[in-house]
């Protein structure tokens, strides 16, 4: 009975709103959900400025920007999937598949290698999307299958690490334009493209409608299946691109390690950025901040000589906080 009435209170049935105490708390969590991630980034920036050596150097910012690029790009695709009340667990494996394909096709130049990698991402996306849209498999299960499958394929194609010998590829990972590293520029461009897509295109609006209520979307004649497939294809393409950039930066293709746990980082970035797992909303700016937050958190812990396991625990704490903030604003 109590949960039910609480739901009613938050649902604000009739003219009534929640009682003042709860209203204040709800407002606080709403604030936390929307702006908490920016506050977190600010806190980490201030902390590092004060306590970390060489933090405020151009070189450090470049490093951070290069490292955050793949997480951010993958998180963009994840945000789309989560916006439809779905999820894409296969992104890390798509990165691995991407790096394997690049190693095999780099002989034809980096751009063709990228193209092949993207085709791989599209293929995985089509499979994910078809399972979700046509067969009606739950996204978490469908993409879990592809997560295992794509990783397996990546390892079949390239069983062990191979160095990148292509100079063009290496310069993509390390070069810059006016001091901004290429990976960061590409990530930024993709942020703008995805942000524009979500806000201004029919596809973006329909995606949110499907996430908010799929039955309503079907009855309203929206192209539900087409949109769902497109969403997973986008996610696959973005993950493949991230794999390309990561390969360029590392100067090596290593499908055993590349992309590992990337799905978790991406989900964290999206959720911490205020996108509700219940679907119907995509916050691109928040997702960017979420990715930056994770990167800064990792960097901070590393620079203060804490073991990587601490990073994971810190990430866990951030997720719990984000989910707590999202709790009261969840779906009715």
């Amino acid at each position: 009975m109590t949960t039910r009435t609480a739901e009613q209170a938050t649902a604000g049935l009739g003219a009534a709103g929640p009682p003042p105490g709860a209203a204040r708390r709800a407002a606080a969590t709403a604030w936390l959900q929307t702006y908490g991630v920016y506050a977190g980034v600010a806190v980490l920036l201030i902390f590092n400025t004060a306590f970390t050596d060489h933090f405020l150097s151009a070189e450090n910012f470049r490093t951070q920007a290069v490292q955050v690029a793949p997480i951010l790009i993958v998180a963009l695709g994840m945000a789309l999937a989560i916006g439809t009340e779905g999820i894409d667990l296969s992104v890390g494996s798509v990165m691995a598949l991407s790096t394997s394909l690049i190693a095999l096709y780099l002989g034809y130049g980096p751009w063709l290698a990228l193209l092949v990698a993207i085709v791989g991402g599209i293929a995985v996306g089509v499979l994910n999307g078809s399972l979700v849209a046509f067969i009606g498999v739950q996204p978490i299960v469908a993409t879990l299958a592809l997560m295992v499958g794509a990783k397996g394929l990546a390892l079949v194609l390239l069983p062990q690490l191979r160095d990148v010998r292509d100079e063009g590829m290496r310069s993509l990972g390390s070069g810059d334009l006016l001091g901004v590293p290429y990976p960061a520029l590409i990530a930024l461009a993709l942020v703008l493209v995805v942000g524009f897509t979500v806000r201004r295109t029919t596809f973006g609006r329909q995606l949110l409608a499907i996430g908010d209520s799929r039955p309503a979307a079907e009855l309203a004649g929206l192209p539900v299946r087409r949109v769902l497939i497109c969403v997973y294809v986008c996610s696959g393409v973005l993950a493949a691109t991230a794999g390309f950039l990561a390969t360029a930066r590392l100067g090596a293709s290593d499908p055993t390690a590349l992309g590992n746990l990337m799905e978790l980082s991406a989900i964290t970035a999206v959720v911490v950025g205020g996108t509700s797992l219940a679907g119907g909303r995509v916050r691109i700016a928040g997702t960017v901040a979420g990715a930056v937050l994770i990167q800064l958190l990792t960097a901070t812990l590393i620079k203060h000589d804490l073991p990587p396991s601490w990073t994971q625990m810190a990430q866990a704490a951030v997720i719990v906080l984000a989910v707590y903030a999202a709790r009261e604003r969840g779906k009715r």
Partner: protein
Amino acid sequence: MLAVRGLTKRFPGVLALDDVDFTLRPGEVHALIGENGAGKSTLIKVLTGVYRPDEGELLHHGEPAAFATPLAAQGAGISTIYQEVNLVPLMSVARNLHLGREPLNRFRLIDFARMHREAADTLREYGVHTDVRRPLRELGVGAQQMVALARAVSVNARVVVMDEPTSSLEPREVETLFGVIRRLRAAGVAVLYVSHRLDELYAVCDRVTVLRDGRRVHTGPIAELERLELVSLMLGRDIGEVRAEGATRFGADHSAGREPVLDAAGLTVPHKLHEVSLAVRPGEVVGLGGLLGSGRTETVKAIAGALPLAAGRVTVAGRPLRTGSTAAAIGAGISLLPEDRKSEGIWPGLSVRENIALAILPRLSRAGLVSESRIDAIVDTFVRRLRIKASSPRQPVGELSGGNQQKVLLARWLAAEPKVLLLDEPTRGIDVGAKAEVQKLIDELAEGGLGVVLISSDLEELIEGSDRVVVLRDGAVVEELAGDDVTEDRLMRAIASAAEEAAHTGPRAGPDEPGGGTAVPAESGVPGRPPAGERDTGPARTGSAHEKRSREGGRS
């Protein structure tokens, strides 16, 4: 028993209740009515401990009381039954009934035999005859509501608050509910009864309190109040005006001798519809009568492409429609206002603006880019035309009242410029004012040349609103009433004869309701098995057609 004095409750920007006095006496059934936003919900929530008053006091047995939580109110013998069922669907009926106070055996374990026996006995009094070991969700919505009621009452309640308890019940169940209410009254229990259905209030209530804009405008015996007076009190409109325009807002018939704009023939959906045919002329309102589960909802859903057909064809304005695709139906000019507004109609988290524009987005876009100005223009037009009350077009629809949500949906479908409007319970669960507006709008639309199919469980609405009524039973057409035959009496008899026969077919497993026993999952695409003879009666659309509709994509 339970009273408030000088109750005032404020919310940011709203005075929800303004100096309200209200007394609930033992052994009375007290009706609480008012339009949405009049303060009913707030008053109930104060009485049941969800909210605390800003000013004024709450008296319980004459003593000032303050319920800190709904649980405290329950402890004091105040039970609440909400519109929607609040139970555990996967647990057995008996477990639900006894949740939290299961009978125990000497090992402190649940005594299932006793629990099942007691549960069956209790539910029989409520007209629910079922195997209490079955999961609750297998019951119809009405039966679930009865279980919720039985549960609420059996906690030794002295005060029972019922918030629109009949919104998902069928007439027979409403009678059972009234029986229960009368027994509660005889036992000295105070019942607070909230409903938009005036018939019910007169049938079962002793006194009535009318709220309007947060103020109490009337309290008194309901028998002394004429229906029209009640409506005028609620709306704050003059009696003469109400009388002149009728209790519902439907005007004259709009017969038109033109060719049918919608012609559906031989619609067959396995286990749900059997050769249902229906024709609607421009300017005509065709009512669909019948009980819950008679196939009304399935008929309109099949026409709108939301149910795959095993057989049958649909023609819109002379053109054959590719069935089994909602996008194709919308493109051809068919719009469906679904019965379940909350889960199939609105996008609760999206704004009023998006809710109106999304279904026709391709028309408001160029090369896949949305034109904000065109959306604004259309949203603006409909918000004004339908008088949608929202703080701004950006307000999430989930926050609006039921009536305004329904208007938003109507706006969505009118924006699609339909030729045929299928309305499934368009006025269910919305307040009297909005109801009148919606009814009037239906009338205007028909006059404007739209073909309308109207489903309503409100007989008055069905009769006054329809030019013709097609009565369904068990998924087949049993009778068609037209002209002077469209009367309450004839309709009741047509439905009643249907009900008599339906009563012999065992427990109600209405196709109208998800979870009904015989229901075939609508999503699965129903891999065929149409009766052999029907394969040739029309383009058989099964799973594949259902799947095609997503690829079909937007409308032309």
